[in-house]
């Protein structure tokens, strides 16, 4: 239920946005504006934290398991 509410609020939030044209996206295309632009760093961090903490996920498909947790 919380998830559905979250998605609903996000859709309401985003539906009010004007369309940004492709030629206006130079800033958005920069690596520092992208989520997990460094995939190798994101994978290493996820593996490290998943081995020490009881939770995982939120974004993306979870990777392979290991005997480290």
């Amino acid at each position: 239920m919380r998830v559905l509410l979250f998605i609903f609020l996000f859709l309401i939030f985003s539906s009010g946005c004007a369309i940004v044209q492709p030629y206006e996206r130079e800033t958005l295309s920069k690596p520092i504006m992208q989520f997990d632009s460094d995939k190798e760093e994101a994978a290493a961090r996820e593996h490290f934290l998943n081995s020490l903490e009881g939770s995982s996920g939120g974004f993306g498909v979870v990777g392979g398991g290991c005997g480290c947790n």
Partner: protein
Amino acid sequence: MGAIKVIMPFLIFVGFLCFHPGAVLAEDYVHTPVHYYDINHGLTIAKPVFSISQDVTLDTNLSMRFTVDRVKTEVSGVDAISGATQYVGASAQGSTDTRKEIAVSVAHVIGEWKIEPGYLLSVEHDYKSHAPSITVSKDFFQRNTTLTMGYAHNFDEVMGVYLEVSEDKNINNYAISLTQVLTSETIAQIGYTFSDGSGYMGTGNRKVRLENDQEMHEFLPEERGREAVGFRIAQWLPTNGSVQFSYRYYTDDWQIDSNTYQVQINQYVADAILVRGEYRYYDQSGAYFVKDSYTGAEKYLTSATSLRAFNADLYGIKLIYAVRGPMDRDWDWDWDWDWDLEAKYERYTQSNDLEANIFMLGIRLPL
């Protein structure tokens, strides 16, 4: 055999995709970061990574990542039989252990669709994991909105030192996310993941010390459902930088609930130097069967610190130096320098008496 039955259709699917026309894909690069983790209680991990991303056709990109974890622990097999508060490292064997991982994925664009099947294999002496996956993305509203869905299945085999025979673990992982361009300088994403696992959930490397000083094998539930929802937003800064915020709420049927807050600031301090500062706060409740001490009559027992209630902080700084310009003109080659040097330091502390210093050095070369 189960893994092969899943992998073969993926390979056939990938073969089909490679001959299908489409659009241009992402950048090509080679990336070679080396991570080093220095964790208290005598655990160190050296983690070299080699990653390559290369377009193989105009609309198909192949990515491969090789990772080695060289785990060295001073914890002996006897010492690894922990009390509830003692940290147990990646291996109960003591000495060293090596984990090797290979991840392969093929991204293919068909109009506004992107399809990316992948496969991950992780092998260590007491654990093996096969994880085929597929991710599908679709752009909407002139690419202002992207919907991404993914599925992965883990075929894991646990072979810990205290197990007489290897045990299986299977996990279905589902993910969905929506990325939305809000303005020409702001982008946001919401994500939801769900996984249901069944089988042997422990490592086979832990025992639990009871109140009477006897030792027992760890027993965990054989089912686990986990879900998480996350939100993150990136905002461009007029100082030639950006700030990213993220929040994640996690819950599972072992009654672990967690909150994760993260802020990251990126700032160019010169044309060629990018500095990133980061802070992450994490807190979680403990699993319902975790206790400070066990009598041995309990159905489930564990000494895993990751299942206890705690909070954690992570601070980090990263520098990227972009090396650009012509090479020595005395050489015959007509090349320019065009690569990034990276260095990172992070400090991670848990209220569970765990501390880690994390170092990373890397080079990224465009192809």
